[in-house]
């Protein structure tokens, strides 16, 4: 029942918040988000790390005539992402506390509903249920950007919606096709469904379109910078921290186990696209003048490590190196979770400044440290984490994936490691222009440092960034059994 609670508590609460109106919206939202997070903790502490089977499973017939079931469960791959989701939800409510004055109930309600839906994405073990959650998350995000967004929000929302919606339609077709072959929508049944080469290839491509757009991979990434720029702060944070991970999760839950042979065949293409994301996008980020765009591009570049880590697995399996395959996949997982904290923190930092100055342009700032020293310390810390500093979570995933990719090919590691230079260059250059130096204008001179609310919000994120950087085993050890199982599964051809 725990997973259902985590899905429906925020959704129902979201509806209640909408119904009760603005007056008590904040307190209810805070209470619900904290409660959801607390309820999600047993997932972590009660998790059996020795088995790869689904845990906390629930099953109910939902639409029996269509063979669609309400099946939930988590393994080591999905569980950390659920915790990330419920945690970020708390941060979101804190971030909106005084900032959102316009229709606050709708805003907070939408985020609560979205949280429930996102938990659903990671917990669903029925493909149609997954699809519905996957699609439904778009609606609240669409509202959030469309209502509280910036001046160009219409273009951004339409682009965001069409891109991601178009992507997932193909996934639905693939799911229905597989139902016709195997008469089941259960994800675990699909994993063992026999599919021939041609079928696998088409299904892989259908999934690829959906997940590549979501994560996003080059060249279907251009919706993300626009969406981020227009989204309100918390929208950007959730988008970067959670929604992108649905793509990475999709690859691990669907593409790899359902179509292992096709994944194996196309791994070269996937690695190529990932490395383009790391290098090309790294350069593009360097040229950005808008802070949010810069962080958005940085996200795409970091997600390149996720897809690289995932698809490098096949090269290692091909080389007969079973034992180290897990390093790349677990690296990808750690990268997703770490990025959840760091990118959310970076967007919130920009939000903190935006709330005061109402500009995201780098050129409008300079010397912020003079008027906001505590904030500056946080921003520099998160920037260094974003640049992959050891001791922060940003380092762990990159390190694992670089090591794993060296095993596959020297040049993969070489190109991936350029992020050490490019990532530091675009992040620290932004920090230099925004944070350091003399006060450049009256807006900066009139800044006030972060208040207690903002401090708590950033400190919570900083705590997790450090914790995972100093002791990554905390999350890595829960993944082992599931990842080993996945590696076993994809090592065996389906035909």
């Amino acid at each position, binding site marked *: 029942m725990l997973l259902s609670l985590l899905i429906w508590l925020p959704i129902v609460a979201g509806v209640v918040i909408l119904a009760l109106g603005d007056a008590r919206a904040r307190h209810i939202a805070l209470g619900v988000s904290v409660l959801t997070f607390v309820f999600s903790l047993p997932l972590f502490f009660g998790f059996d790390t020795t088995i790869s089977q689904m845990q906390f499973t629930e099953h109910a017939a939902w639409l029996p005539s269509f063979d669609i079931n309400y099946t939930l469960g988590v393994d080591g791959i999905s569980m950390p992402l659920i915790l990330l989701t419920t945690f970020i939800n708390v941060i979101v409510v804190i971030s909106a506390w005084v900032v959102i004055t316009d229709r606050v109930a709708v805003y907070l309600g939408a985020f609560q509903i979205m949280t429930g839906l996102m938990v659903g994405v990671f917990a669903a073990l029925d493909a149609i249920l997954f699809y519905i959650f996957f699609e439904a998350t778009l*609606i609240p995000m669409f509202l959030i950007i469309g209502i509280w967004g910036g001046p160009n929000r219409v273009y951004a929302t339409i682009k965001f919606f069409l891109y991601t919606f178009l992507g997932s339609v193909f996934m639905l077709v693939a799911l229905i096709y597989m139902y016709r072959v195997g008469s089941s929508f259960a994800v675990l049944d699909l994993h063992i469904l026999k599919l021939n080469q041609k079928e696998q290839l088409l299904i892989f491509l259908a999934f690829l379109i959906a997940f590549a757009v979501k994560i996003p991979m080059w060249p279907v990434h251009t919706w993300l910078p626009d969406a981020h720029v227009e989204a309100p702060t918390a929208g950007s944070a959730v988008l970067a921290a959670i929604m992108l991970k649905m793509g990475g999760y999709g690859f691990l839950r669907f593409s790899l186990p359902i179509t292992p042979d096709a994944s194996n065949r196309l791994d070269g293409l996937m690695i190529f696209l990932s490395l383009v994301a790391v290098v090309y996008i790294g350069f593009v980020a360097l040229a950005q003048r808008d802070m949010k765009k810069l962080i958005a591009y940085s996200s795409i570049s970091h997600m390149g490590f996720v897809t690289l880590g995932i698809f490098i697995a096949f090269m290692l399996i091909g080389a007969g190196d079973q034992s180290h395959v897990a390093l790349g996949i677990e690296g990808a997982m750690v990268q997703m979770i770490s990025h959840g904290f760091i990118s959310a923190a970076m967007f919130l930092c920009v939000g903190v400044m935006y709330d005061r100055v109402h500009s995201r342009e780098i050129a409008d700032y300079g010397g912020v440290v003079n008027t906001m020293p505590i904030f500056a310390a946080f921003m520099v810390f998160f920037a260094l984490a974003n640049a992959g500093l050891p001791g922060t979570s940003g380092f762990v995933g990159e390190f694992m994936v*670089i090591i794993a990719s*060296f095993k596959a090919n020297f040049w993969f590691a070489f190109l991936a490691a350029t992020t050490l230079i490019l990532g*530091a*260059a675009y992040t620290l250059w932004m920090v230099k222009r925004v944070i350091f130096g003399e006060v450049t204008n009256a807006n900066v001179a009139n800044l006030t440092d972060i208040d207690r609310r903002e401090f708590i919000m950033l400190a919570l994120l900083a705590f997790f960034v450090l914790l995972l950087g100093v002791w990554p085993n905390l999350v890595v050890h829960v993944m082992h059994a599931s990842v080993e199982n996945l590696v076993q599964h994809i090592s065996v051809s389906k035909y």
Partner: protein
Amino acid sequence: MKFIYTLIPLCPLFAAIAAGLFGKRLGRVMSHRVTIGGVAMSFLLSLIAFQQVVLSGNTFNESIYTWMVSGGIRFEVGFLVDRLTVLMMLVVTFVSLMVHIYTIGYMHDDDGYQRFFSYISLFTFSMLMLVMSNNFMQLFFGWEAVGTVSYLLIGFWYKRDTAIFANMKAFLVNRVGDFGFILGIAAVVMYTGSLDYEEVFVKAQPLIGQTMSIMGGFEWSVLTVICICLFIGAMGKSAQMPLHVWLPDSMEGPTPISALIHAATMVTAGIFMVARMSPLFELSETALSFILVIGALTAFLMGLIGIVQHDIKRVVAYSTLSQLGYMTVALGASAYSAAIFHLMTHAFFKALLFLAAGSVIIALHHEQDMRKMGGLRKYLPITYWTSLIGSLALIGFPGLSGFFSKDLIIEAVHESTLPGATLAYWAVLAGVFVTAFYSFRMFFLVFHGKSRMDEHTEEHCHEPPNVVTWPLIALAVPSVIIGFMTMGPIVFGQYFEGVIFVDDSHNVIERVREHTTGAMSMLSHVPGSKAFYLAMAGVFFAWFFYLVKPEWPAKIQSKLGFLHRILDKKYGFDEFNQTVFAAGSVGIGAGLWRFGDQGVIDGAVVNGSAQGIGKLAGLARLSQSGYLFHYAFAMIIGLLVMMSIFLFI
């Protein structure tokens, strides 16, 4: 002992946290007490470690906790405390302690007093983690952590444009080195399956002869690739050409950190790392030759730039680059013990020279231009005498610590037979003259001759307080005696046995031992030593040009304008990097963005198809209200319709 060893890095860490987070509440005095206490504690515990490891012979190698296990590889945090580590620990904690005390005086009037103490304690923690590591991952952690603190400290005065440019430059150039370093570590993991030093060194032996193809059929020795990649990391951290460009600019930071980080400890991390990895580097002569040549070029060419600098700190900075080149040369010649020996003596006398320069700078109210100094001898007697000791130690005056370490390196390179050794030998020998010349040029310009200060400065010029001068004296003592005292055991004795591994075919120290057996015999060779006469010649010319005929340097400069311009432009590295790498990268980024993202992907594909669809949708739009929940509702209906079509047809 595990507990004590764990405390050694943790003391400064906790002190740094206390001063950093609660500095306001603790106040200035409490903050410096806490941090000095932390470092002093580390120093005392390091003495216990010395007693344990060196006197009792108990090497410690254990993990503290498991950072992560993934893909069958254990990533651990652990300590290896052997004789090399203990030596580094003592140097780091002692110099750090001196710098902490000195800072009380130097940063007295600065608003960021607590923050500064927090940073230097954090640095001490990072550096200790680096030297005490027993595995590559923690080494990389320390490596990047010291770089980060260096970044924070170079940009300590964050209002100065030059400082915030210099700190970013330092971080990025170091990242170029780390780029190589991480590839080296990845290669180590790939070929040995482990990150643990001990295990890697054992598993490296069978790799001899194994090759990997990197580009089109050409086979590289695996060990050469590993060693060169690791050494690229060292080139960044230890500022070897062409990755040296950040170190002179790092002088934008306050002087105490120039002494601690950019002279005595952090920049020697690369030297330490190669010495630590001697069992790997000994297996690749190609890598050793590469190291030898890079070191020789740095030692000679960077010393030359020191001659034309006017900023007192920059002279010392170029001197540091040149001396790091000497250490690198020693590494390349397989004289690891000589490199570490020079690292140690250099740590003392170079920290002394920096702190003395800092003493001059505060006495003159933050004036760093030597053209506005002169005749300071009578105002700053303690600074004068300690500077003299530091300068004599630096140029290798017989009997002082630098003499032993530098002459040893020259002797060792002379014995080396690796490709590049001849070049390196002449480079380090010529470097002796250059070193003596720039050192005493600085010394005479600052302390002798007529005063070129303005009246106001001269009036207020006096010796800084005790907290500044005592560390000078405390550093002057080892600058004099440490070489004589420790050379025997460290280089010619058994100190590094079992720690540093040297292949018999290039054991140059063994060959030096045939004619020199210790400090006394080294001193007895002075009358026949080329290096000694070159050093004396350097001092003589400096004296002649800057005290006897002070008008000559300007004349020579105008005669040799071309040469001067090359040196003044520092061989053009900065311009090249700025125009090609920095501007080039931003240009590439802007190009890809405008053309790739906005032009092709968005312009042609996305918006193009959107417009096409838009026309079609014009019809459908008639039936729609524009309310978002209607869209959502329509979506779900659509979904059901689609599903029914697929399922029932």
